[in-house]
């Protein structure tokens, strides 16, 4: 059993429990700053969210202080976006995230902790507009 097992057990106990909802309005200035930061000048992004914008609207991972007891740094392993409706300037979007899996793997440079989370984004009518799945890695 890994020395990190208590940390893993504490994280695993949180699997499936939704975090607190956070709501934010898509602002024109934020869209513009985001499009400039990624270097994408497609005019549609002045009024509509480009594919990865939702990560900027609400925190993509629940705050997991206990995970930081494992290893010394974070890496992003991957992301999956699913789009159901366009997100436009002025939309109030609510994000609810949860942990869906936590496991340890032995890699070539030592042990890694994989933390899989999912965030669902809703509009003001309660309809899901997008989903995000992410793999955060502690190393």
């Amino acid at each position: 059993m890994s020395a990190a097992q208590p940390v893993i057990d504490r994280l695993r106990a949180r699997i499936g429990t939704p975090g607190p909802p956070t709501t934010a309005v898509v602002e024109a200035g934020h869209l513009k700053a985001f499009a400039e930061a990624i270097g994408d000048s497609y005019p549609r992004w002045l009024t509509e969210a480009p594919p990865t914008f939702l990560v900027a609207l609400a925190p993509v991972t629940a705050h997991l202080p206990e995970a930081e007891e494992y290893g010394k740094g974070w890496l992003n392993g991957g992301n999956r976006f699913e789009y159901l409706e366009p997100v436009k300037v002025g939309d109030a979007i609510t994000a609810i995230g949860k942990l869906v899996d936590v496991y340890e793997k032995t890699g070539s440079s030592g042990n890694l902790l994989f933390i899989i989370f999912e965030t669902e984004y809703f509009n003001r009518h309660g309809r899901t507009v997008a989903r995000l799945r992410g793999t955060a890695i502690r190393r």
Partner: protein
Amino acid sequence: MNIEPGHELPDLIKHPTTRQLVQYAGAQGDFYEIHYDQEFARSVGLPGVILHGLLKAAFLGQLVTDWLGERGTLKSFEVSYRGIDVPGRPYRCRGRVTSVVGGRAELEVWGEDPEGNRTTVGTAVVELTA
């Protein structure tokens, strides 16, 4: 419409800089120091500051939406980060149509460093406007 299996998307070549990493950190709200603090990045075993995975995802998203234009809608998009990339080196985004079924096209997309290593790989699904 020339969207059929094997069709290659026009390359998108990005030139990330440390300035862009700071700009992106602010726009996304991700202030993890490995993206702007050289000393911190080295202290956690990295060669120096590295690109945000999600910035590379944004580049690949742009690859797809630039190509698609108003011909359809992006339905899903998935990327895995297989290697790190550092600012000051061009990042080449590439993609190819892998299947077209009933108005939906699947693409494979990837980002390459200057040595041709695929440091980000992924897939996208687009729904084509009839």
